[in-house]
């Protein structure tokens, strides 16, 4: 197998060049998928027999929550790569992913609170799942703040990588919180090992929405990473020629 692509992945300029070809595909696919999934979920699925129409929030709440956790796992991976191999691009990815993950975490918490009011009769409760998710948001904010507080790029990279790795312990807590502490939040709807506990006419728009949100994350992450590359490589000839 040809492994040269693996070395090229560490080159900011190579990534900047290759990623420009991905952008139109990501733009079209993510926006079309999200649009189709949300219109389908809002207008064409039947209401839930127990929750009525409020369950339609699921088509945003579940993809946002999945992403909030998946982005954190990606950040922890980038953190490990930064610490072990000192690849600059991994630290840039870690930096640009933090605000995106935080925004999806806010969306997950906000839609969860809105869904909780008609379903549980309360906006917020100190349930294990909700509390662990709030801690995830604080971790995201902490990583963004830590980056802003340290002047030198290398020291900030190391500190943020360590904080990201320490915080990853929260992810399994979020995942298993609904099994360990049986409180308000319902169990998982989608499981890899079992058949989903959801009717297919509701399941399909949900799966489309999850795919669309993942593609959207990839799109905005690549957009931010390209700008971060320009910023950090601003002393190089290729960036100066590109900009002027």
């Amino acid at each position, binding site marked *: 197998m040809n492994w040269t692509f693996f070395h090229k992945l560490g080159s900011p300029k190579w990534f900047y060049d290759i990623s420009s070809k991905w952008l139109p595909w990501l733009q079209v696919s993510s926006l079309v998928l999200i649009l189709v999934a949300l219109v389908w979920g809002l207008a064409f699925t039947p209401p839930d027999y127990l929750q009525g129409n409020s369950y339609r929030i699921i088509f*945003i709440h579940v993809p946002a929550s999945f992403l909030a956790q998946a982005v954190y796992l990606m950040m922890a991976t980038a953190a490990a790569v930064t610490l072990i191999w000192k690849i600059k691009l991994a630290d840039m990815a870690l930096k640009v992913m933090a605000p995106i993950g935080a925004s999806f975490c806010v969306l997950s918490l906000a839609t969860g609170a809105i869904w909780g009011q008609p379903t549980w009769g309360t906006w917020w409760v100190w349930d294990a799942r909700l509390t662990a998710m709030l801690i995830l948001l604080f971790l995201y904010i902490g990583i963004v703040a830590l980056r802003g507080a340290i002047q030198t790029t290398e020291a900030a990279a190391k500190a943020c990588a360590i904080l990201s790795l320490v915080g990853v312990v929260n992810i399994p807590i979020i995942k298993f919180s609904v099994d360990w502490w049986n409180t308000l939040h319902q169990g998982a709807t989608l499981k890899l090992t079992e058949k989903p506990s959801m009717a297919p006419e509701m399941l399909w728009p949900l799966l489309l929405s999850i795919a669309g949100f993942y593609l*959207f994350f990839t799109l905005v992450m690549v957009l931010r990473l390209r700008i971060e590359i320009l910023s950090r490589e601003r002393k190089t000839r290729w960036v100066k020629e590109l900009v002027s």
Partner: protein
Amino acid sequence: MYFDSWAGFLAMEGHGLYVWSAYVIAMMVIAYNLIAPLLAKRRVVAEVRRQERLIRSKVVVRDFKAITENSLERVEGLEPVHRAVERGVQ
């Protein structure tokens, strides 16, 4: 289509406010993620151009200094012109 009318679609049988506010917040998060990189790009491009201008203007000052160094500094009470220019630039 599950709903029979636009009014029914908006009302969601009493859950309209919850459902629609959740979707509005989702649109706001999507918009933030699309607008933030655009603003950041403008900032970075301006920064790279400013840095380029600065380097070019420093080269001009150095040339000017080389010409005036020997002649002007001998005149009493006169601040060397290149130092004044440097202050203005930085």
